[in-house]
Protein backbone atom coordinates (compact mmCIF):
# COMPACT_ATOMS: atom_id res chain seq x y z
CA UNK A 1 0.00 0.00 0.00
CA UNK A 2 1.90 3.08 -1.19
CA UNK A 3 1.81 6.81 -0.64
CA UNK A 4 -0.85 9.11 -2.10
CA UNK A 5 -0.92 12.85 -2.83
CA UNK A 6 -3.89 14.58 -1.21
CA UNK A 7 -5.73 17.93 -0.92
CA UNK A 8 -2.71 20.01 0.11
CA UNK A 9 -1.24 19.70 -3.38
CA UNK A 10 -4.29 20.91 -5.30
CA UNK A 11 -3.54 24.21 -7.11
CA UNK A 12 -0.13 24.36 -5.39
CA UNK A 13 2.07 21.67 -6.96
CA UNK A 14 5.28 22.63 -5.18
CA UNK A 15 7.05 19.59 -6.70
CA UNK A 16 9.78 19.29 -4.06
CA UNK A 17 8.79 15.63 -4.03
CA UNK A 18 9.80 15.19 -7.66
CA UNK A 19 13.45 15.92 -6.88
CA UNK A 20 13.56 13.35 -4.10
CA UNK A 21 11.45 10.55 -5.51
CA UNK A 22 14.03 7.81 -6.07
CA UNK A 23 12.02 6.17 -8.84
CA UNK A 24 10.58 9.26 -10.55
CA UNK A 25 7.02 8.03 -10.07
CA UNK A 26 5.27 11.34 -9.23
CA UNK A 27 3.31 12.55 -12.25
CA UNK A 28 2.07 16.06 -12.90
CA UNK A 29 -1.63 16.62 -13.49
CA UNK A 30 -3.23 20.00 -14.24
CA UNK A 31 -4.14 20.77 -10.63
CA UNK A 32 -2.11 18.30 -8.58
CA UNK A 33 0.58 15.64 -8.60
CA UNK A 34 -0.16 11.88 -8.60
CA UNK A 35 1.98 8.99 -7.32
CA UNK A 36 1.96 5.91 -9.59
CA UNK A 37 1.17 3.25 -6.98
CA UNK A 38 2.81 0.34 -8.83
CA UNK A 39 6.01 2.29 -9.38
CA UNK A 40 6.21 3.72 -5.84
CA UNK A 41 8.62 1.77 -3.64
CA UNK A 42 7.28 3.08 -0.30
CA UNK A 43 10.43 4.96 0.71
CA UNK A 44 8.51 7.93 2.10
CA UNK A 45 10.88 10.68 0.89
CA UNK A 46 7.94 12.61 -0.60
CA UNK A 47 6.03 12.62 2.69
CA UNK A 48 9.04 14.05 4.51
CA UNK A 49 9.80 16.77 1.97
CA UNK A 50 6.31 18.06 1.01
CA UNK A 51 5.91 21.63 2.35
CA UNK A 52 2.13 21.30 2.00
CA UNK A 53 2.15 18.05 3.93
CA UNK A 54 0.02 16.64 1.16
CA UNK A 55 1.58 13.19 0.87
CA UNK A 56 0.06 10.53 3.11
CA UNK A 57 0.72 6.87 3.61
CA UNK A 58 -2.31 5.38 1.93
CA UNK A 59 -3.81 3.80 5.02
CA UNK A 60 -3.71 7.04 6.93
CA UNK A 61 -7.46 7.67 6.87
CA UNK A 62 -10.57 9.23 5.37
CA UNK A 63 -8.71 12.18 3.86
CA UNK A 64 -7.10 9.78 1.41
CA UNK A 65 -10.08 7.97 -0.15
CA UNK A 66 -11.02 10.63 -2.75
CA UNK A 67 -7.39 10.87 -3.83
CA UNK A 68 -6.80 7.14 -3.91
CA UNK A 69 -9.76 6.85 -6.28
CA UNK A 70 -8.52 9.76 -8.40
CA UNK A 71 -5.04 8.22 -8.55
CA UNK A 72 -6.57 4.96 -9.64
CA UNK A 73 -8.43 6.73 -12.48
CA UNK A 74 -5.32 8.57 -13.61
CA UNK A 75 -3.21 5.45 -13.92
CA UNK A 76 -5.97 3.31 -15.41
CA UNK A 77 -5.67 5.77 -18.28
CA UNK A 78 -1.91 6.29 -18.27
CA UNK A 79 -0.60 2.90 -17.14
CA UNK A 80 2.96 2.65 -15.88
CA UNK A 81 5.26 4.86 -17.99
CA UNK A 82 8.14 4.16 -15.52
CA UNK A 83 9.38 7.75 -15.57
CA UNK A 84 7.44 10.91 -14.91
CA UNK A 85 10.23 13.00 -16.40
CA UNK A 86 10.23 11.13 -19.68
CA UNK A 87 6.43 11.01 -19.78
CA UNK A 88 5.97 14.73 -19.15
CA UNK A 89 2.84 16.39 -17.72
CA UNK A 90 -0.32 14.28 -17.87
CA UNK A 91 -2.39 17.12 -19.29
CA UNK A 92 -5.49 16.22 -17.28
CA UNK A 93 -7.07 15.52 -13.92
CA UNK A 94 -9.87 13.06 -13.30
CA UNK A 95 -13.35 14.68 -12.92
CA UNK A 96 -13.32 14.36 -9.11
CA UNK A 97 -10.23 16.59 -8.97
CA UNK A 98 -11.31 18.97 -11.77
CA UNK A 99 -14.49 19.67 -9.84
CA UNK A 100 -12.79 20.61 -6.56
CA UNK A 101 -13.24 24.23 -5.43
CA UNK A 102 -10.31 26.38 -6.58
CA UNK A 103 -7.81 27.05 -3.82
CA UNK A 104 -6.42 30.52 -3.15
CA UNK A 105 -2.69 30.36 -3.53
Amino acid at each position, binding site marked *: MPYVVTAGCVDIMDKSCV*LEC*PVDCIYEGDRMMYIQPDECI*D*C*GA*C*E*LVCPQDAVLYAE*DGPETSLFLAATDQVFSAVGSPRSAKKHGPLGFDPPSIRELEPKDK
Partner: protein
Amino acid sequence: MSEPHHRHLRVAVVGSGPSGAYCVEALLESLPGMSISVDVIERLPVPFGLVRYGVAPDHERIKSIIDSFGEILSHERVRFLGNVAYGSDITMLDLRRYYDVAIFACGANSTRRLGIPGENLPGVFAAADFVSWYNGHPNATIERFALTAKQATVIGNGNVALDVARMLVNPRETLLQTDVPQHVLDLLVKSPIEDVHIVGRRGPLQAKFTTKEIVELGRLDDVDVIVDPCVLRVTESELKQAAPPTARMVAALRTLGSLPRGRARRIHFTFFRRPVAVFGHPGAESVVLEATEGDNDHGKTERARREVIEAGLVLTSVGYRAEPLPELPFDAVTATVPHTNGQVFDGDDTRPAVYVAGWLKRGPTGVIGTNRRDSLETVKALLSNARGFPRALERDPGAVVSLLRERGVEVVPWDGWNAIDGAEVARGARLGRARVKIHRLEELLQASSRCPPE
Protein backbone atom coordinates in the same frame (compact mmCIF):
# COMPACT_ATOMS: atom_id res chain seq x y z
CA MET B 1 34.06 32.48 -23.99
CA SER B 2 37.53 31.74 -22.67
CA GLU B 3 38.91 28.23 -22.29
CA PRO B 4 36.55 25.48 -23.37
CA HIS B 5 35.68 22.74 -20.85
CA HIS B 6 38.04 19.85 -20.62
CA ARG B 7 37.51 17.83 -23.70
CA HIS B 8 36.57 15.03 -21.38
CA LEU B 9 35.90 14.91 -17.64
CA ARG B 10 37.06 11.82 -15.75
CA VAL B 11 35.15 11.43 -12.49
CA ALA B 12 35.72 9.02 -9.60
CA VAL B 13 32.72 8.33 -7.37
CA VAL B 14 33.75 6.54 -4.17
CA GLY B 15 30.84 4.43 -2.95
CA SER B 16 28.00 2.78 -4.86
CA GLY B 17 25.13 3.17 -2.40
CA PRO B 18 22.19 5.53 -2.96
CA SER B 19 24.18 8.78 -2.80
CA GLY B 20 26.89 7.44 -5.13
CA ALA B 21 24.32 6.07 -7.59
CA TYR B 22 22.44 9.39 -7.62
CA CYS B 23 25.69 11.29 -8.22
CA VAL B 24 26.31 9.07 -11.23
CA GLU B 25 22.75 9.62 -12.45
CA ALA B 26 23.13 13.39 -12.15
CA LEU B 27 26.50 13.29 -13.94
CA LEU B 28 25.04 11.27 -16.79
CA GLU B 29 22.17 13.68 -17.16
CA SER B 30 24.67 16.49 -17.75
CA LEU B 31 26.02 14.59 -20.73
CA PRO B 32 24.55 16.69 -23.55
CA GLY B 33 26.73 19.61 -22.49
CA MET B 34 29.80 17.71 -21.47
CA SER B 35 31.75 14.56 -22.16
CA ILE B 36 32.03 12.58 -18.94
CA SER B 37 33.12 9.13 -17.87
CA VAL B 38 32.67 7.85 -14.34
CA ASP B 39 34.51 5.19 -12.37
CA VAL B 40 32.58 3.98 -9.34
CA ILE B 41 35.02 2.76 -6.70
CA GLU B 42 33.42 0.38 -4.21
CA ARG B 43 35.22 -1.34 -1.37
CA LEU B 44 32.97 -4.42 -1.57
CA PRO B 45 32.77 -6.76 -4.57
CA VAL B 46 29.06 -5.86 -4.84
CA PRO B 47 27.28 -2.55 -5.48
CA PHE B 48 24.36 -0.71 -3.83
CA GLY B 49 25.67 -0.06 -0.29
CA LEU B 50 22.91 0.18 2.29
CA VAL B 51 20.21 -0.77 -0.22
CA ARG B 52 21.76 -4.22 -0.25
CA TYR B 53 23.10 -4.22 3.31
CA GLY B 54 20.89 -1.83 5.28
CA VAL B 55 17.31 -1.94 4.01
CA ALA B 56 15.35 -4.59 5.89
CA PRO B 57 15.08 -7.83 3.86
CA ASP B 58 11.28 -7.87 4.30
CA HIS B 59 11.00 -4.45 2.61
CA GLU B 60 11.08 -5.84 -0.92
CA ARG B 61 9.47 -2.78 -2.47
CA ILE B 62 12.21 -0.48 -1.24
CA LYS B 63 14.86 -2.99 -2.25
CA SER B 64 13.46 -2.94 -5.79
CA ILE B 65 15.26 0.41 -6.22
CA ILE B 66 18.24 -1.84 -7.02
CA ASP B 67 16.84 -2.21 -10.54
CA SER B 68 17.14 1.49 -11.31
CA PHE B 69 20.51 1.77 -9.55
CA GLY B 70 21.66 -1.16 -11.70
CA GLU B 71 20.69 0.72 -14.85
CA ILE B 72 22.64 3.77 -13.71
CA LEU B 73 25.76 1.87 -12.67
CA SER B 74 25.88 -0.27 -15.82
CA HIS B 75 25.59 2.72 -18.17
CA GLU B 76 28.14 2.75 -21.00
CA ARG B 77 29.86 5.85 -19.57
CA VAL B 78 30.22 4.20 -16.16
CA ARG B 79 32.74 1.63 -14.98
CA PHE B 80 32.31 -0.30 -11.72
CA LEU B 81 35.54 -1.03 -9.84
CA GLY B 82 34.42 -3.33 -7.03
CA ASN B 83 36.55 -4.71 -4.20
CA VAL B 84 38.69 -1.55 -4.25
CA ALA B 85 39.06 0.19 -0.89
CA TYR B 86 39.78 3.90 -0.73
CA GLY B 87 42.71 4.58 1.59
CA SER B 88 44.43 1.24 1.17
CA ASP B 89 44.00 0.01 -2.42
CA ILE B 90 43.68 3.49 -3.89
CA THR B 91 44.81 6.77 -2.33
CA MET B 92 43.98 10.44 -2.75
CA LEU B 93 47.23 10.82 -4.67
CA ASP B 94 46.08 8.10 -7.10
CA LEU B 95 42.69 9.75 -7.51
CA ARG B 96 44.38 13.05 -8.43
CA ARG B 97 46.56 11.28 -10.95
CA TYR B 98 43.80 9.36 -12.71
CA TYR B 99 40.71 11.56 -12.30
CA ASP B 100 39.88 15.22 -12.82
CA VAL B 101 37.52 15.17 -9.86
CA ALA B 102 36.43 12.80 -7.07
CA ILE B 103 33.14 12.56 -5.19
CA PHE B 104 33.16 10.77 -1.85
CA ALA B 105 29.82 9.08 -1.23
CA CYS B 106 30.87 6.34 1.11
CA GLY B 107 28.32 6.84 3.86
CA ALA B 108 28.55 6.39 7.60
CA ASN B 109 29.82 2.95 8.46
CA SER B 110 30.34 3.18 12.18
CA THR B 111 27.85 3.34 15.04
CA ARG B 112 27.33 5.37 18.16
CA ARG B 113 27.63 3.73 21.53
CA LEU B 114 25.63 4.16 24.70
CA GLY B 115 28.52 4.39 27.13
CA ILE B 116 26.87 2.38 29.93
CA PRO B 117 28.22 -0.41 32.16
CA GLY B 118 27.73 -3.86 30.67
CA GLU B 119 27.72 -2.58 27.10
CA ASN B 120 30.59 -4.91 26.24
CA LEU B 121 28.93 -8.07 27.56
CA PRO B 122 28.28 -10.88 25.10
CA GLY B 123 24.73 -10.45 23.84
CA VAL B 124 24.96 -6.66 23.55
CA PHE B 125 25.40 -5.39 19.98
CA ALA B 126 24.93 -2.33 17.84
CA ALA B 127 21.66 -2.84 15.95
CA ALA B 128 23.62 -1.91 12.81
CA ASP B 129 25.79 -5.00 13.34
CA PHE B 130 22.66 -7.15 13.52
CA VAL B 131 21.39 -5.47 10.34
CA SER B 132 24.72 -6.17 8.59
CA TRP B 133 24.62 -9.76 9.77
CA TYR B 134 21.09 -10.61 8.66
CA ASN B 135 21.75 -8.89 5.35
CA GLY B 136 24.87 -11.02 4.86
CA HIS B 137 27.44 -8.22 4.83
CA PRO B 138 30.86 -9.79 4.20
CA ASN B 139 32.37 -7.87 7.13
CA ALA B 140 29.74 -9.22 9.56
CA THR B 141 31.07 -12.37 11.18
CA ILE B 142 28.75 -15.26 10.43
CA GLU B 143 28.99 -16.77 13.92
CA ARG B 144 28.35 -13.42 15.63
CA PHE B 145 24.69 -14.01 16.46
CA ALA B 146 23.34 -17.14 18.09
CA LEU B 147 19.73 -15.95 18.66
CA THR B 148 19.03 -18.08 21.69
CA ALA B 149 17.37 -15.34 23.77
CA LYS B 150 13.65 -15.29 24.54
CA GLN B 151 13.74 -11.63 25.52
CA ALA B 152 15.35 -8.86 23.52
CA THR B 153 15.65 -5.14 24.12
CA VAL B 154 16.21 -2.62 21.35
CA ILE B 155 17.43 0.77 22.51
CA GLY B 156 16.48 3.59 20.15
CA ASN B 157 13.46 5.14 18.51
CA GLY B 158 14.14 5.22 14.79
CA ASN B 159 13.15 3.02 11.89
CA VAL B 160 16.26 0.85 12.34
CA ALA B 161 14.93 -0.12 15.78
CA LEU B 162 11.66 -1.15 14.13
CA ASP B 163 13.48 -3.06 11.39
CA VAL B 164 15.48 -5.17 13.83
CA ALA B 165 12.45 -5.76 16.07
CA ARG B 166 10.39 -6.89 13.08
CA MET B 167 13.15 -9.15 11.79
CA LEU B 168 13.35 -10.79 15.22
CA VAL B 169 9.64 -11.67 15.28
CA ASN B 170 8.85 -12.21 11.59
CA PRO B 171 7.22 -15.59 10.90
CA ARG B 172 8.94 -18.22 8.79
CA GLU B 173 6.72 -17.53 5.76
CA THR B 174 7.81 -13.90 5.67
CA LEU B 175 11.47 -14.79 6.12
CA LEU B 176 11.29 -17.30 3.28
CA GLN B 177 10.35 -14.47 0.91
CA THR B 178 13.54 -12.59 1.76
CA ASP B 179 17.05 -12.96 0.39
CA VAL B 180 18.85 -13.39 3.74
CA PRO B 181 21.69 -15.95 3.73
CA GLN B 182 20.53 -19.49 4.49
CA HIS B 183 22.34 -19.71 7.85
CA VAL B 184 20.65 -16.46 8.89
CA LEU B 185 17.26 -17.78 7.84
CA ASP B 186 17.84 -21.01 9.78
CA LEU B 187 18.71 -19.12 12.97
CA LEU B 188 15.83 -16.65 12.66
CA VAL B 189 13.34 -19.47 12.06
CA LYS B 190 14.61 -21.40 15.10
CA SER B 191 14.80 -18.32 17.30
CA PRO B 192 12.89 -18.80 20.60
CA ILE B 193 12.24 -15.06 20.84
CA GLU B 194 9.03 -14.11 22.66
CA ASP B 195 9.35 -10.45 23.61
CA VAL B 196 11.09 -7.50 22.01
CA HIS B 197 11.12 -4.24 23.97
CA ILE B 198 11.72 -1.06 22.01
CA VAL B 199 12.93 1.53 24.48
CA GLY B 200 13.10 5.28 23.88
CA ARG B 201 14.73 7.92 26.03
CA ARG B 202 12.10 10.43 25.03
CA GLY B 203 8.40 10.24 24.26
CA PRO B 204 6.29 9.17 21.31
CA LEU B 205 6.20 12.72 19.92
CA GLN B 206 10.00 12.74 19.73
CA ALA B 207 10.30 9.27 18.20
CA LYS B 208 11.79 9.16 14.70
CA PHE B 209 9.61 6.34 13.44
CA THR B 210 7.69 6.89 10.23
CA THR B 211 3.97 6.20 9.97
CA LYS B 212 4.39 3.47 7.40
CA GLU B 213 6.75 1.46 9.60
CA ILE B 214 4.34 1.73 12.54
CA VAL B 215 1.29 0.78 10.47
CA GLU B 216 3.22 -2.24 9.21
CA LEU B 217 3.59 -3.64 12.72
CA GLY B 218 -0.17 -3.91 12.96
CA ARG B 219 -0.09 -6.35 10.06
CA LEU B 220 2.20 -8.87 11.76
CA ASP B 221 -0.16 -11.80 12.17
CA ASP B 222 1.30 -13.67 15.09
CA VAL B 223 2.62 -10.71 17.02
CA ASP B 224 0.98 -8.59 19.71
CA VAL B 225 2.10 -4.98 19.80
CA ILE B 226 1.87 -3.50 23.26
CA VAL B 227 2.22 0.26 23.34
CA ASP B 228 3.27 2.24 26.40
CA PRO B 229 0.18 3.82 28.04
CA CYS B 230 1.82 7.24 27.77
CA VAL B 231 0.95 7.18 24.07
CA LEU B 232 -2.73 7.37 24.95
CA ARG B 233 -2.07 10.39 27.13
CA VAL B 234 -0.64 12.50 24.33
CA THR B 235 -3.15 15.34 24.20
CA GLU B 236 -4.96 16.69 21.15
CA SER B 237 -3.19 20.02 21.51
CA GLU B 238 0.19 18.27 21.62
CA LEU B 239 -0.73 16.45 18.44
CA LYS B 240 -1.80 19.71 16.79
CA GLN B 241 1.50 21.35 17.70
CA ALA B 242 3.54 18.44 16.36
CA ALA B 243 4.70 18.27 12.76
CA PRO B 244 1.87 16.56 10.83
CA PRO B 245 3.91 13.46 9.89
CA THR B 246 4.77 13.03 13.59
CA ALA B 247 1.13 13.46 14.60
CA ARG B 248 0.13 10.78 12.09
CA MET B 249 2.85 8.46 13.38
CA VAL B 250 1.67 8.87 16.98
CA ALA B 251 -1.93 8.30 15.88
CA ALA B 252 -0.78 5.09 14.20
CA LEU B 253 0.99 4.03 17.41
CA ARG B 254 -2.26 4.56 19.31
CA THR B 255 -4.25 2.33 17.03
CA LEU B 256 -1.77 -0.49 17.64
CA GLY B 257 -3.32 -0.79 21.07
CA SER B 258 -1.92 -1.69 24.41
CA LEU B 259 -3.38 -5.06 25.30
CA PRO B 260 -1.79 -8.45 24.69
CA ARG B 261 -4.07 -10.77 22.78
CA GLY B 262 -2.26 -13.97 23.62
CA ARG B 263 -0.15 -14.27 20.50
CA ALA B 264 3.15 -16.11 20.63
CA ARG B 265 5.38 -13.07 20.21
CA ARG B 266 5.15 -9.51 21.45
CA ILE B 267 6.69 -6.14 20.59
CA HIS B 268 6.55 -3.63 23.45
CA PHE B 269 7.02 0.11 23.07
CA THR B 270 8.46 1.73 26.18
CA PHE B 271 9.02 5.48 26.25
CA PHE B 272 10.75 7.92 28.62
CA ARG B 273 13.22 5.26 29.75
CA ARG B 274 16.96 5.15 29.30
CA PRO B 275 19.19 2.16 29.84
CA VAL B 276 21.66 2.66 32.68
CA ALA B 277 23.31 -0.76 32.80
CA VAL B 278 23.27 -4.25 31.36
CA PHE B 279 23.74 -7.14 33.79
CA GLY B 280 24.45 -10.82 33.34
CA HIS B 281 27.05 -13.54 33.46
CA PRO B 282 28.64 -14.58 31.22
CA GLY B 283 26.42 -12.62 28.82
CA ALA B 284 23.55 -10.14 28.98
CA GLU B 285 20.58 -11.23 31.07
CA SER B 286 18.85 -7.98 31.95
CA VAL B 287 18.76 -4.26 31.28
CA VAL B 288 18.20 -1.64 33.96
CA LEU B 289 15.99 1.20 32.74
CA GLU B 290 15.59 4.55 34.43
CA ALA B 291 12.77 7.05 33.93
CA THR B 292 13.89 10.18 32.10
CA GLU B 293 12.90 13.79 32.70
CA GLY B 294 10.18 13.82 30.10
CA ASP B 295 8.33 11.28 32.18
CA ASN B 296 7.53 13.95 34.75
CA ASP B 297 4.62 14.86 32.52
CA HIS B 298 3.47 11.38 31.82
CA GLY B 299 2.76 8.59 34.21
CA LYS B 300 5.71 8.52 36.56
CA THR B 301 3.31 7.55 39.27
CA GLU B 302 2.51 4.30 37.57
CA ARG B 303 5.98 2.88 37.38
CA ALA B 304 9.07 2.84 39.46
CA ARG B 305 11.84 5.25 38.49
CA ARG B 306 13.96 2.18 37.89
CA GLU B 307 12.96 -1.14 36.47
CA VAL B 308 14.77 -4.23 35.32
CA ILE B 309 13.71 -6.08 32.20
CA GLU B 310 14.97 -9.45 31.12
CA ALA B 311 17.12 -9.31 27.98
CA GLY B 312 19.40 -12.00 26.61
CA LEU B 313 19.89 -9.87 23.52
CA VAL B 314 20.39 -6.10 23.62
CA LEU B 315 20.58 -4.12 20.39
CA THR B 316 21.54 -0.47 20.55
CA SER B 317 20.14 1.59 17.72
CA VAL B 318 21.26 5.09 18.54
CA GLY B 319 22.55 6.20 15.18
CA TYR B 320 25.15 5.64 12.53
CA ARG B 321 28.34 7.65 12.47
CA ALA B 322 30.88 8.34 9.74
CA GLU B 323 34.57 7.79 10.41
CA PRO B 324 37.31 10.12 9.17
CA LEU B 325 38.81 9.12 5.82
CA PRO B 326 42.49 9.44 4.87
CA GLU B 327 43.37 12.78 3.25
CA LEU B 328 39.90 14.24 3.81
CA PRO B 329 39.01 16.90 6.41
CA PHE B 330 36.53 15.76 9.04
CA ASP B 331 34.35 17.55 11.56
CA ALA B 332 34.44 15.27 14.59
CA VAL B 333 31.42 16.95 16.20
CA THR B 334 29.01 16.40 13.33
CA ALA B 335 30.93 13.39 11.99
CA THR B 336 30.75 14.79 8.48
CA VAL B 337 33.16 16.19 5.91
CA PRO B 338 33.03 20.02 5.84
CA HIS B 339 31.73 21.28 2.51
CA THR B 340 29.90 24.04 0.64
CA ASN B 341 27.14 22.63 -1.54
CA GLY B 342 29.16 19.44 -1.67
CA GLN B 343 32.54 20.98 -2.43
CA VAL B 344 34.96 19.92 0.31
CA PHE B 345 36.79 22.64 2.20
CA ASP B 346 39.58 22.40 4.69
CA GLY B 347 39.89 25.47 6.88
CA ASP B 348 40.24 28.40 4.47
CA ASP B 349 41.29 26.11 1.74
CA THR B 350 38.67 24.89 -0.70
CA ARG B 351 39.61 21.62 -2.36
CA PRO B 352 38.96 22.40 -5.99
CA ALA B 353 38.24 18.90 -7.21
CA VAL B 354 37.04 16.96 -4.16
CA TYR B 355 33.34 16.64 -3.42
CA VAL B 356 31.18 14.81 -0.94
CA ALA B 357 27.60 13.50 -1.01
CA GLY B 358 25.14 11.54 1.12
CA TRP B 359 25.58 10.64 4.78
CA LEU B 360 29.25 11.64 4.74
CA LYS B 361 28.07 15.12 3.71
CA ARG B 362 24.95 15.73 5.78
CA GLY B 363 25.04 13.04 8.48
CA PRO B 364 22.99 9.84 8.71
CA THR B 365 19.51 11.25 8.09
CA GLY B 366 16.65 10.85 5.67
CA VAL B 367 15.44 8.04 3.47
CA ILE B 368 16.81 6.74 0.18
CA GLY B 369 15.15 9.46 -1.88
CA THR B 370 16.62 12.19 0.31
CA ASN B 371 19.96 11.37 -1.29
CA ARG B 372 18.72 12.20 -4.76
CA ARG B 373 18.36 15.90 -4.15
CA ASP B 374 21.51 15.88 -2.02
CA SER B 375 23.59 14.26 -4.78
CA LEU B 376 22.12 16.61 -7.37
CA GLU B 377 23.32 19.59 -5.32
CA THR B 378 26.85 18.17 -5.21
CA VAL B 379 26.95 17.40 -8.92
CA LYS B 380 25.59 20.85 -9.84
CA ALA B 381 28.37 22.49 -7.82
CA LEU B 382 30.90 20.16 -9.41
CA LEU B 383 29.80 20.90 -12.96
CA SER B 384 29.76 24.64 -12.39
CA ASN B 385 33.39 24.47 -11.22
CA ALA B 386 34.55 21.91 -13.76
CA ARG B 387 36.60 24.26 -15.88
CA GLY B 388 38.81 25.09 -12.91
CA PHE B 389 39.79 21.52 -12.09
CA PRO B 390 43.45 20.61 -12.49
CA ARG B 391 43.54 18.18 -15.35
CA ALA B 392 44.53 14.64 -14.37
CA LEU B 393 47.84 13.63 -15.91
CA GLU B 394 46.94 10.04 -16.69
CA ARG B 395 44.12 9.94 -19.28
CA ASP B 396 44.18 6.24 -20.18
CA PRO B 397 41.21 4.52 -18.47
CA GLY B 398 43.12 1.23 -18.42
CA ALA B 399 45.96 2.69 -16.35
CA VAL B 400 44.15 2.76 -13.02
CA VAL B 401 43.05 -0.86 -13.40
CA SER B 402 46.61 -1.90 -14.25
CA LEU B 403 47.87 -0.07 -11.18
CA LEU B 404 45.31 -1.82 -8.95
CA ARG B 405 46.19 -5.22 -10.39
CA GLU B 406 49.90 -4.52 -9.86
CA ARG B 407 49.04 -3.85 -6.23
CA GLY B 408 47.39 -7.25 -6.03
CA VAL B 409 43.83 -5.90 -5.88
CA GLU B 410 41.31 -8.29 -7.36
CA VAL B 411 39.11 -5.69 -9.10
CA VAL B 412 35.51 -6.87 -9.53
CA PRO B 413 33.97 -5.31 -12.65
CA TRP B 414 30.22 -4.95 -13.34
CA ASP B 415 30.24 -8.33 -15.09
CA GLY B 416 31.65 -9.76 -11.87
CA TRP B 417 28.66 -8.40 -9.97
CA ASN B 418 26.37 -9.86 -12.64
CA ALA B 419 28.01 -13.23 -12.03
CA ILE B 420 27.46 -12.87 -8.25
CA ASP B 421 23.87 -11.85 -8.92
CA GLY B 422 23.37 -14.97 -11.04
CA ALA B 423 25.02 -17.18 -8.42
CA GLU B 424 22.70 -15.83 -5.70
CA VAL B 425 19.61 -16.43 -7.80
CA ALA B 426 20.84 -19.96 -8.60
CA ARG B 427 21.48 -20.61 -4.91
CA GLY B 428 17.94 -19.42 -4.22
CA ALA B 429 16.51 -21.74 -6.86
CA ARG B 430 18.21 -24.72 -5.21
CA LEU B 431 16.70 -23.76 -1.86
CA GLY B 432 13.23 -22.86 -3.13
CA ARG B 433 13.74 -19.12 -2.66
CA ALA B 434 13.93 -16.23 -5.12
CA ARG B 435 17.48 -15.33 -4.05
CA VAL B 436 19.85 -16.34 -1.31
CA LYS B 437 22.63 -13.89 -0.56
CA ILE B 438 26.24 -14.99 -0.45
CA HIS B 439 27.69 -13.90 2.89
CA ARG B 440 31.39 -14.69 2.78
CA LEU B 441 33.81 -12.38 0.99
CA GLU B 442 35.81 -15.29 -0.48
CA GLU B 443 32.64 -16.82 -1.90
CA LEU B 444 31.57 -13.48 -3.39
CA LEU B 445 34.98 -13.14 -5.05
CA GLN B 446 34.85 -16.72 -6.28
CA ALA B 447 31.40 -16.19 -7.76
CA SER B 448 32.49 -12.92 -9.37
CA SER B 449 35.37 -14.55 -11.20
CA ARG B 450 33.03 -16.93 -12.97
CA CYS B 451 32.32 -14.17 -15.45
CA PRO B 452 33.86 -13.92 -18.90
CA PRO B 453 37.10 -11.89 -18.83
CA GLU B 454 36.82 -8.28 -19.99
